[in-house]
């Protein structure tokens, strides 16, 4: 009277086919997403990993007294009159001397020789000398940066062919670099300084780092996390659990979804008007940036939190109320933990967005060239009140620079940003897994 279980009937076959298709769509969707992720990550990693390495030249630098200390008594006031421009020839001479020592002949002009050394090197040497005036008159060994083109040569970015066309370097210079590398004088090694140094100008891609940007992003994320999460969750709780359902709460609800659709730059306009012009917080400061990003992230967190709260079955609330818990207690003890995965997802996505956002920072002055490390707190500028940049800003700036050396650094900054994001998310993801349960 009935069909066998082991053979599927036509209708079941059809339904199973639909099932298989459905499942395949799902898997396909995951694969598409993963594929996109892999492509994007490979391109970022492929471009950016090289930024973690840097080429240095080991130079024995003679520090002549007649050039560096006209007073001869190591008077810092006098010595500091010699600017980095004055130090440049000393380095060039050191490189020439090294070449001579190694028996490398060259017909390059002085300028071209200078161009092999980073412009940052002069500052390095000058700072060392001013820090220790006694070095004047001695020959001191310095590990100075090679210029961006030379560095690019060792990373494969600059080739003999491209150098031939390049105004800023030449095949001869590259040959010399190769010879120096063979002699162990030029070395490409891991570069911690990338994470520590501040930004550098367009002429020194090799010296540019993301130290300031990391600090700025860190400060801003602290502000965002400390404000957006509690405020977002609090207002969701109020709206979802306590607010009377009337026209007024409808207005708030629509208003919040609408805020999510406000272009991020508009939050910059708002931040400029409210936080800088009205409240007189410091411009370019991570505090203002954090506040603006908080406002921008709030709708994301609120929308996802509300959805999560909505999905907690009413019987749980009833159970708590039934044993005499207050509404507030039922929410904080039972509903909120059950909604936690959704809240955390909203937080992850909101923070990801906040961490990668540039446009609003444009208007409050954080898209900038900043070389001074911002302090977390100073009495004059308050909490997070010193000028700073942020990681996405650094990326944005570097992708606009003319020197191709900045391309790898932009990607390096992106990698750092993603790692930053992963670290931030790891906590949230861990918590989310702990809270996840089916009932």
């Amino acid at each position, binding site marked *: 009277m009935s069909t066998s279980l082991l053979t599927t009937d036509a209708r079941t076959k059809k339904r199973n086919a639909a099932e298989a298709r459905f499942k395949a769509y799902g898997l396909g969707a995951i694969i598409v997403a993963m594929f996109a*992720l892999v*492509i994007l990550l490979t391109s970022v990693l492929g471009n950016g990993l090289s930024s973690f390495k840097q080429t240095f030249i080991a130079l024995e630098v003679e520090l002549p007294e007649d050039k560096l200390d006209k007073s001869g008594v190591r008077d810092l006031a006098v010595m500091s009159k010699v600017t980095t421009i004055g130090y440049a020839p000393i380095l060039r001479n050191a490189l020439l001397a090294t070449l001579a020592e190694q028996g490398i002949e060259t017909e390059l002009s002085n300028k071209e020789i200078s161009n092999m050394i980073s412009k940052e090197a002069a500052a390095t040497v000058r700072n060392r000398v001013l820090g220790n005036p006694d070095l004047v008159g001695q020959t001191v060994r310095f590990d100075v940066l090679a210029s961006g083109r030379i560095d690019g040569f060792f990373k494969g970015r600059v080739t003999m062919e491209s150098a031939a066309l390049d105004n800023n370097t030449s095949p001869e210079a590259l040959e010399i670099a190769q010879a120096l590398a063979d002699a162990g004088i030029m070395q490409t090694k891991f570069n911690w300084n990338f994470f520590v140094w501040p930004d550098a100008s367009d002429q020194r891609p090799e010296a540019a780092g993301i130290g300031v940007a990391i600090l700025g992003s860190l400060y801003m994320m602290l502000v965002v996390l400390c404000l957006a999460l509690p405020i*977002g969750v609090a207002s969701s709780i109020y709206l979802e659990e306590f607010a009377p359902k009337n026209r007024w709460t409808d207005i708030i609800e629509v208003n919040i979804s609408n805020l999510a659709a406000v272009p991020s730059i508009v939050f910059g306009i708002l931040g400029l008007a409210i936080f800088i012009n009205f409240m007189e917080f410091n411009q370019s400061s991570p505090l203002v940036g954090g506040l603006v990003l908080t406002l921008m992230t709030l709708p994301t967190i609120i929308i996802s939190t509300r959805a999560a709260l909505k999905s907690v079955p009413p019987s749980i609330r009833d159970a708590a109320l039934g044993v005499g818990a207050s509404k507030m207690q039922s929410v904080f003890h039972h509903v909120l933990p*059950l909604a936690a995965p959704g809240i955390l997802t909203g937080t992850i*996505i909101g923070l990801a967005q906040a961490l990668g956002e540039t446009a609003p920072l444009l208007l409050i002055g954080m898209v900038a060239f900043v070389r001074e490390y911002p302090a977390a707190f100073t009495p004059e500028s308050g909490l997070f009140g010193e000028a700073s940049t942020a990681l996405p800003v650094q990326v944005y700036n570097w992708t606009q620079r003319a020197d191709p050396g900045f391309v790898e650094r932009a990607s390096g900054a992106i990698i750092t940003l993603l790692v930053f994001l992963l670290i931030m998310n790891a906590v949230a993801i861990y918590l989310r897994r702990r809270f996840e349960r089916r009932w």
Partner: protein
Amino acid sequence: MQSLTLPLLVILGLTITGYFLAKTRALQVAGGDIRKLVSLPKQHALNTVLATAIPPLAAIVLFSLYRRLAEAEGSWLFTLVVIALAVTGFALSLIGIKTESRARTFAERWIMGLLIFASTIAIMTTVGIVFSMLFETFNFFEQYDWRDFFFSANWSPNFRGNSDLGILPLLWGTLYISFIALTFAVPIGLFAAIYLSEYASSRMRSVAKPAIEILAGIPTIVYGLFALVTVGPFLRDYFASPMGLGQSASSVMTAGLVMGIMLIPFVSSLSDDIINAVPQAMRDGSFGLGATKSETIRQVVIPAALPGIVGAILLAASRAIGETMIVVLGAGAAARLSLNPFEAMTTVTVKIVSQLTGDTDFASPETLVAFALGLTLFVITLGLNVFALFIVRKYREQYE
């Protein structure tokens, strides 16, 4: 700043001592037996903390506002008032600790106040946004005819003045690109969510979900360059050119597709959580009737999770409307009214950014139009959201 340091320190000190004092005192009045207390020591402590901290903090905020508005200077009187408030709250709440006092109710009132305050922040943000743009928008419409702005199909700003600043092509671009992005992101995101929550092993889920979330964190410039360098030429060479739809590497399609990728996690992750929260009993009920998994998902789980899913989609749509970098690099900067998805177009948001950061005179209509664009977009999305709310209301299903 400096004038605040002392009051803040006082508040901090009082709340911390208040917490412990209240706890001890509550136990003390109960003679060590908390069963005699109407409210728990914890709740007394919480009440003390809130009563000590909230009034002076509120006073600080109010007073700072007043100071900005009236351009008054900070004074010792103010500091005194703040500290007095803190001390009063501290003392009153501590004195109020009796066995029968209802600290929980009071604490909950404070918390409720905080919750309400938090939910007004969104409103205040909106007010702030409208006001920070209203004035300049007004200036714009003094210099530029509103009819031309709203009804002209031409967008071509010009340094010499006499620009055409019609919003229509920008709106069209916004809608077109968002539409393509969503047609790409919503099905993929939704299917990914379904697969993750219903089919995938917990291991795969714990890897794939955070991985997909990375897509939301990749800076948009990376997507933009991806669109410009890879997707754009690919679409042009393999689709647009063979189909005779044009030679443009920047196109609505390019930007839409790439933006769609970015939006996947918005749909997938949020929906996944919501789907996961649908009680197992619902699924069991369906399986018990001989439904396949996909039937169960489509007809029982998704409808039950619909409000949350719609929220996720709205969020993705919002993000699509607000995105700049991908559009600049993927779709170009040309304002155009066209149906051809392989042509370059641009969006309102892109033009807000570019007019705001451009070189035109900042008091000229060419720059001020950014504010008018922002406000108009704001009103339009408001309309769309009202519509969405209406739809959600109509189709929401409540379980249990």
